[in-house]
């Protein structure tokens, strides 16, 4: 085996090991919803919309931080207690604010967040259209005056001295 193929084999093995080593955090929690597949699905779905405040770019479904484990347990307990999804979301935002939501709500303070990309797109499109219009309307050369035309024709009619033919 060549050196290069050893490295790529190792890299592949490492990737496979990494994929196997990170099971969904949910599989490990024992909790009230475990026996009920519908409640379980709801718990997973809700947990995927909630941010873990410790490891901020993970949902509480992905994270194994202690806080995420607690919040997952809360979600499950509240589902078992018959609360609706909205009630559970409200419970979380009452304590942790909108930051706990992975999908921030559209309101006055987040309008720039939601509208910003559209605004940028509009500015870009406007600039593009303007630049393209400018390029298309390159001014044509002014028409020749009769004297100029006569001179040009005379020049073209005269045999060129440098013409090898």
């Amino acid at each position: 085996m060549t050196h290069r193929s050893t490295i790529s084999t190792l890299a592949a093995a490492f990737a496979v090991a990494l994929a196997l080593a990170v099971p969904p955090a949910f599989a490990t929690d024992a909790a009230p919803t475990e026996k009920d597949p519908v409640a379980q699905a709801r718990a997973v779905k809700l947990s995927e919309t909630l941010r873990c405040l410790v490891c901020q770019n993970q949902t509480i479904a992905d994270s194994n931080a202690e806080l995420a484990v607690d919040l997952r347990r809360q979600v499950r307990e509240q589902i078992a207690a018959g609360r609706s999804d909205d009630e559970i979301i409200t419970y979380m935002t009452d304590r942790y604010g909108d930051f706990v939501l992975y999908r921030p709500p559209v309101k006055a303070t987040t309008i720039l967040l939601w509208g910003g990309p559209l605004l940028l797109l509009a500015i870009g499109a406007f600039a593009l259209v303007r630049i393209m219009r400018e390029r298309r309307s390159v001014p044509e050369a002014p028409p020749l005056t009769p004297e100029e035309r006569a001179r040009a024709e005379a020049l073209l009619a005269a045999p060129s001295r440098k013409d090898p033919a």
Partner: protein
Amino acid sequence: MNRKFLIPLGVFAVLFAFLLVGLGLNPREVPSPLIGKPAPAFVRNQLHAPDKTMGTADMKGQVWLLNVWASWCVACREEHPLLVQLGKAKVVPLVGLNYKDEPTDGKRWLAQHGDPYTVSVVDRDGAVGLDFGVYGVPETFVIDKAGVIRYKQIGPVTVEALEKKILPLVRELQKS
């Protein structure tokens, strides 16, 4: 003169300003929605007298601090000497919430590092912490006479935070 070259420069200046401001922000500090709202009510056993309880109702009518701490919390050691000083000064009641901790560990830790708390309560399962929106320990809340949360210190209490924010706020609230 054609000033078109100024456009990219302007765009760059705007981006630069945004990034510069962004550098100064702390992503760990999540603004609490509880500021200005009544502190979640709790009644818990006291750490040093497990047969007695203490709750938010006991603190009605006075300005007080709630400090969330644990023996396993490394950053708590950083703020602790300052809390001990504050406890000695007796300017404001300081309630300790022993968060997700074994009471024996908590008591040993206080014996070792000093006990600044007017009273310590046990929150073994972290339920009180959850109600207060605690996501990192230590955290410190300033609660007014009516039981409304006025300020939340995320992370260790620093000399600066104590002198510039917490103590002035406490004095102001005590006057009203």
